[in-house]
């Protein structure tokens, strides 16, 4: 079939519905959090906690990450579901634990352009969330690049910090997600995509 628009439009978008409470036996999969194998020389832990508007951990969220390779290029290798034990696919998925905590093993991506900062795209689904939320995790140890990044510059300075993953004691990065309230995470509306 040719890769051209079919003439029968308009193609009206299918709406979102909540992931609900019962995805736990379906969406998480073995190897889901292992975006890079733990023995990879550049493997880092990327983790955090999802909080609700009362400041309580959300125990039934599912988090996905998607990011470029160390040179900032998209990764086009298969195997995100059936990990082969040595590749890095850039995609991971995990359910949070009962304390709302999620953790991935991955590599730190590179920047796509000289004037952009490296980041991880983070997607959050949860019971009670009617439509998923996108956010980006930038890296606290990339001050110079973060300062040049046009998207970060467009975010209100008082909220920009919610997009920064902090370096933790183990050489990994901690990125907490606050769905509502004090320190509410900046969530994204991508241009060209309906709300």
């Amino acid at each position, binding site marked *: *079939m040719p890769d051209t*628009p*079919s003439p029968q439009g*308009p*193609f*009206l*978008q*299918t*709406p*979102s*519905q*909540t*992931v*609900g*409470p*019962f*995805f*736990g*036996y*379906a*969406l*998480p999969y073995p190897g889901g959090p292992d975006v890079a194998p733990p023995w990879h020389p550049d493997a880092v832990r990327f983790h955090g906690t999802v909080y*609700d508007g009362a400041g309580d951990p*959300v125990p*039934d969220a*599912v988090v996905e990450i998607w990011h*470029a390779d160390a040179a900032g290029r*998209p990764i086009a*290798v*298969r195997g*995100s*579901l059936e990990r082969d034990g040595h590749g890095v696919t850039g995609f991971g998925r995990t*359910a949070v*634990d*009962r304390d709302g905590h999620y953790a991935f093993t991955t590599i730190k*991506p590179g920047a796509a352009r000289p004037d952009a900062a490296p980041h991880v*795209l983070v*997607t959050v*689904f949860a*019971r*009670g*969330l*009617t*439509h*998923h939320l996108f956010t*980006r995790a930038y890296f606290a140890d990339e001050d110079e690049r973060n300062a040049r990044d046009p*998207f970060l510059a*467009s975010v209100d300075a008082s909220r920009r910090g919610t997009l920064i993953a902090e370096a933790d004691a183990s050489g990994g990065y901690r990125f907490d997600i606050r*769905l*509502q309230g004090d320190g509410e*995470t*900046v*969530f994204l*509306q*991508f*241009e*060209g*995509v*309906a*709300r």
Partner: protein
Amino acid sequence: MTDIDRDEPEIHAGLEPAADRVVVGGQPTLEQATISAEIAERHRAVREDASAAGRAVPVHPPRDFAPYRSTTLRHPTHELVRAHPEEIELVSPAFGHTDVAAEEGDLTIQHTGEPLGERIIVTGRILDGDGRPVRNQLVEIWQANAAGRYVHKRDQHPAPLDPNFTGVGRVITGDDGGYRLTTIKPGAYPWKNHRNAWRPAHIHFSFFGSAFTQRLITQMYFPGDPLFALDPIYQSIVDPAARERLVARYDHDVSEPEWALGYRWDVVLTGSRATWMEPEDADHA
């Protein structure tokens, strides 16, 4: 495949019992009439906001939708911040047949025996907003069994588990964006949003588009369900035409003689240019 009795030590999803199906210390007292009135009021407010701003009613449900009580503390109060997608966000993970075995699209053959219930075929195409097929992408489903019971450990509904049905399936779309699943029609089930709350029968679907920005998780429903008007999750979508796009259509040409009833459900992952609306008050600061 998945075993119905397996342990799930790492999987705690659905834990928070108070807000969904199980209410600690008794039954919810909130009546359907109250929820229905709140739904009507919220729909009216969203329509008025759209009309005042000269916009169409949004396709997606507002995240702030109080009749579905679990939304209360889980929706952001700030406007979303506009972002140009970066290159990485305009592509998706590569999935393929190394990831998904062909038999994962048939949920009726995962155990030694046949599951109970009405065998169905669900098929359709996944398109982007310009009508292009979304090829070689992952479709995942999960659902309750014919009695309305999930295998999920936290599902407390006193309906029987079916030892021959897990309710999880995966397929990779074909070159025409097509997918095809064989399963059992799920039952309706009760939950604790309010007193006598029942979810219309549905199958949960997860989609990846050709761009990660097209990611979508949603639910597919069956035609003519009497619970539609009462369900605050289905009704969280304010635009009635958008809601109806979640309802599969019975298609006699999909049904197979002496075997299964057929349903067709096509999915469009992102708005075309024609339907793209400027976000309200995008926090552009």
